[in-house]
């Protein structure tokens, strides 16, 4: 259940932002979550309401934008789509692929009032 900690961290960033610029409530929080990362969008959604209760983000809508996986294949010398973190290259079926995108875990933006 590291998703609870991740949401706490998101709320920490929201709180930091509130110290910089005043707002009364948060209506939407947008996260970017890589499909090859360790965070499960459903689990993030599941715990969000509970963790956000009593905070400035209470009642906010959580939107999660998935980030596709990408890798660099050393054999094809090109960027290829990656469905699994340690998957083979979809072009040459080789194993020399290094993940270059898909484990994002960031707070992109939020709508406030």
């Amino acid at each position, binding site marked *: 259940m*590291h998703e609870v900690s*991740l949401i706490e961290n998101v*709320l*920490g960033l929201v709180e930091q932002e509130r110290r910089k*610029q005043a707002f009364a409530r948060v209506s939407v929080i947008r996260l970017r979550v890589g499909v090859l990362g360790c965070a499960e969008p459903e689990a993030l959604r599941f715990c969000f309401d509970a963790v956000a209760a009593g905070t400035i983000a209470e009642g906010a809508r959580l939107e999660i934008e998935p980030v596709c996986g990408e890798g660099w294949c050393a054999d094809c010398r090109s960027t290829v789509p990656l469905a699994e973190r*340690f998957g083979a290259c979809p072009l040459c079926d080789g194993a020399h692929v290094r993940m270059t995108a898909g484990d994002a875990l960031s707070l992109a*933006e939020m709508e406030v*009032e």
Partner: protein
Amino acid sequence: MCTVCGCGTASSADASVSSPLVGDDHDHYGDAHHHEHGPNHHHHPAARALDFGQGLAGVSVPDLSQQRLISIERDILSKNDGFAQANRSALLKADILALNLVSSPGSGKTSLLVRTIMDLKGRWPMAVIEGDQQTSRDAERIRATGVQAVQINTGKGCHLDAHMVGHALQHLSLESGGLLFIENVGNLVCPALFDLGEASKVVVLSVTEGEDKPLKYPDMFAAADLMLLNKSDLLPHLDFDLGACVEAAVRVNPQIQILTVSARTGEGLEAFYTWIEHRAARIEPRIVEPGMREAGP
């Protein structure tokens, strides 16, 4: 979640009596959560890592009703990474090699640590940070060897984070050139995400577990520099396929080093001690810019 001094939901039963305090107060990286520890380790009941107690009603912002969009673009773990970087800098400055031991529960991490401490006692100054959800049993086992240990109880938390470790460091007095073991909460998933400021993660897998665990829990094996295959003395009694396990680990992490050891008989441990010496000889900071994560395994 300030779990060493107990000012969050979790508690630490014995951190206050475990070892000498280095300092009476400490800062929290980039955060307003700050508190001081008096000589009696006074707890502040109101202090929490995340202070959201105000709620909606407590906020009054005149002339501000229009919806606005705020772009943030920050890594969710940037706060943890900030604490981790502070820990890493402090450890580097003190010339201390910190190893973060991770595994599923029951792989023999504590037994391995006890054996390692007994074997290395004359060679290295050592200290241990123990992470468990409840009890200080592991720290007591370590203290029985004569080495100082701080127990962190994470309560409901399933991993140690860099903030907790930063607190624990305040409770230890480790000489320069020393060795710090951080025994993480037994969990092969969550601790992979949280950088503690260690020099290396060491993943312990026992041969009584499945040889395909590196494939089932790839993030942890991808994050580790060394895998210790523990309980090798049981191999004659098991159908464990050592070759398949090594192959699985290398598949998720081509750079991982693998040693087969037995905390019970001591088999293979000299190789582990040599690895530690080599690792200590080339301590180099793994810089993670705040707001950025390393892209690949």
